[in-house]
């Protein structure tokens, strides 16, 4: 099958099998920034945005991306760099494997909430992003400070 979708703003036409998941198709098209983690819908490493909503690309049927706008971390590189500076400042990023999915979920959360979410809301929204290095505390501090800075701008 052939699907046509917009990836990070660029129209692309990609071959895929009917039962294939989006992770495989994106990586085959060279988007290695989409990480393949658990591949069972549990870790959040493969998160991408489809029409602005965060989804697990390992559990998203690739053919359903036909005609949709798919955003990987590369598509939000400028915004992600701003957030990454807060992660660095808090010592919250270690191996970095979860970072693309984690950052995309944070950016989606920022867009979804009209005001700054509290810590419980942040933890709830990020429950689907597992990190095996950080223990999350530094990440939570980084997110709070990033959101406050964004809100102040």
């Amino acid at each position, binding site marked *: *099958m052939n699907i046509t979708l917009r990836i990070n703003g660029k129209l692309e036409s990609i071959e895929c099998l009917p039962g294939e998941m989006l992770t495989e198709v994106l990586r085959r098209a060279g988007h290695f920034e989409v990480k393949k983690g658990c591949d069972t819908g549990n870790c959040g490493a493969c998160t991408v945005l489809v029409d602005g909503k965060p989804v697990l690309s390992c559990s998203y049927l690739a053919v359903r991306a036909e005609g949709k706008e798919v955003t990987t971390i590369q598509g939000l590189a400028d915004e992600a760099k701003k957030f990454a500076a807060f992660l660095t400042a808090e010592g919250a990023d270690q191996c970095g494997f979860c970072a693309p999915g984690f950052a995309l*979920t944070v950016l989606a959360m920022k867009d979804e909430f009209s005001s700054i979410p509290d810590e419980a809301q942040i933890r709830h929204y990020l429950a689907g992003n597992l990190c095996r290095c950080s223990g999350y505390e530094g990440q939570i501090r980084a997110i709070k400070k990033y959101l406050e800075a964004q809100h102040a701008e």
Partner: protein
Amino acid sequence: MEILKYACPQSTDEAFRLIREEHGTAIGGAAWLRTNTKTIALGVDLAGLGLGYVREIGDHIEVGAMTTYRELETNPLLRARFGALFETTVSHVVGVQLRNIITVGGTVAGRYGFSDLNTTLCALGAQAVFYPDQIIDLAQFIERGAEAPFLLEKVLLPASAKGTYHQMRISENDFPIINTTAVWTGSEWRIAVGSRPAATRLCPKAMALLGADPHPSDDILASAARAAADELQFGSDIRASAEYRREILPVLVRRALMEVRG
């Protein structure tokens, strides 16, 4: 899971025909396809049928089969009519990213034992609407399944109810060990229990003990909670033994009833 042939019909008629006449397999959220080893000869994607909605029609609320968990969690109409019931029910399911994929129809049609949502739907007295015109009590469908290949179109909910969902999990993103939803409909109490680990069942004896009194005493609540555990069967699996589930359930049911009664 391997899908040999894929179709994305744009009408419910066509989808139903493919399922009935060409032995197609309906694809809902598709979240479990990755971990399933089955081979599907013809996958019938329901994404093109416009079945993602929550709307009020007459004296009930309709939830389309392709409505996602995230929509249930954040929908203003559901929050206005059922409080935090739907949010509490689905918010433990992995993360926002998966809840943006999983659908109501996939969960109901799968009759999954571990389901959080089916417990709440059964407790609410939801009805399942199968295309073209068959309406079945959802609890009955969960228990007995369907005799022929079907296309679940939507779920009907009462216009409002007061309910709460309680569950126990080993870890936040895991399946529940046991779960329960207690509902006061305005005229009767309803209790459903899921993840036994088998599929959701109502607790008619416990419900009968509570009767039509909106403010039953603490003793009656405790008796009903115990009755719920006595009338159900429990099994053992990797997460908990049957005995453990039987001991935990009355605690959750009593808490849920007390919360709803106030």
